[in-house]
């Protein structure tokens, strides 16, 4: 979102507030992950620890999917790393706006999650550090809390997918994307190209690769700038 003005210490709160509707969906997906992990025979501790130390829904579901499907350790790790490879360019983008020495920056970089990162972006390639961190905290709490609930209730809740809540993520990203599209010409070209590229790669490339390929489309920004 492009709105300016929510800076300084108020930024944390603004970020937390803005992300709340999505964070509720994150909680439900956490429940879903806890149920899935427990059903795979991981017990109660492993799914919870996984959510605490990895905090990455897409990568965690990928690991569950590979291991649950009889795959090995290496394919599971590779699948997760490919899915999270997008954090690399996202981290580069936000880096100039984080604070402190190397360790502090590495720690603040852990606040990079899709929704927080996108919502904290501002005009001209800048990012609102406080907003991003503030938006990540409720998602962390609800993801971990959801996982705990999920392993506790086990099979009781059944398939949360029936509720349609998983559609919140693409729908929410779409609302953020619509805001971006108000940026005009080059943004529209990037969105069209990125969409075509991702769609074309989905059937052929492993999950994660289409996202990285779409990131490369942003290099169009090097063109058409008379600087």
């Amino acid at each position, binding site marked *: 979102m492009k709105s300016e003005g929510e800076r300084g210490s108020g930024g944390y709160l603004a970020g937390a507030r803005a992300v709340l*509707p999505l964070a509720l969906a994150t909680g439900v997906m956490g429940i879903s992950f806890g149920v899935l992990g427990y059903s795979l025979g*991981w017990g109660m501790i*492993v799914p919870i620890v*996984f959510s605490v*130390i*990895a905090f*990455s829904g897409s*990568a965690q579901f990928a*690991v569950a999917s590979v*291991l649950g499907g009889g795959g090995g*350790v290496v394919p*599971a*790790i590779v699948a997760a790393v490919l899915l*999270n*490879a*997008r*954090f690399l*360019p996202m*981290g580069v*983008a*936000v*880096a*100039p706006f*984080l604070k402190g020495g*190397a360790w502090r*920056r*590495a720690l603040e970089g852990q606040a*990079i999650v899709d929704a927080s990162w996108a919502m904290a972006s501002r*005009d*001209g*390639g800048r990012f609102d550090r406080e907003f991003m961190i503030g938006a990540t905290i409720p998602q962390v709490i609800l993801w971990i809390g959801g996982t705990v609930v999920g392993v506790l209730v086990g099979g009781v809740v059944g398939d949360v997918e*029936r509720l*349609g*809540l*998983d*559609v919140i*993520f*693409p*729908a929410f*990203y*779409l609302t953020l*994307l619509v805001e971006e*599209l108000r*940026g005009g010409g*080059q*943004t529209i070209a990037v*969105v069209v190209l990125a969409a075509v590229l*991702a*769609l074309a790669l*989905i*059937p052929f490339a492993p*999950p994660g690769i*289409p*996202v990285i390929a779409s*990131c490369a489309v942003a*290099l169009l*920004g*090097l063109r058409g*700038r008379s*600087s």
Partner: protein
Amino acid sequence: MTALWITIVAVALASAALRAVGPILLGGRELPSSANAVIALLVPAVLTALVVTQTFSEDGWLVLDDKAIGVAVAAVVLALRAPVLLAVALAVVTTALARAFG
């Protein structure tokens, strides 16, 4: 059991590293202005990829299912300049209904 622990610890370390590499290597350096143009476009590029893959991709397959109907409804509602939360809520209701009766 041990293989499972190795997997989750490795994935956690890799995720942490991927999030930390950019911030550590770049430090607080300002990026050149040409990079700023790329980063400004990285946001819509990432969002587009997330919308497309989370809507049309299932375990590496291209799919067209109830989720696409929900996202399409959200797109129409947003095009009508309705509130963001209404668009998301209608997407959820549509997808749930499609799953219930599909």
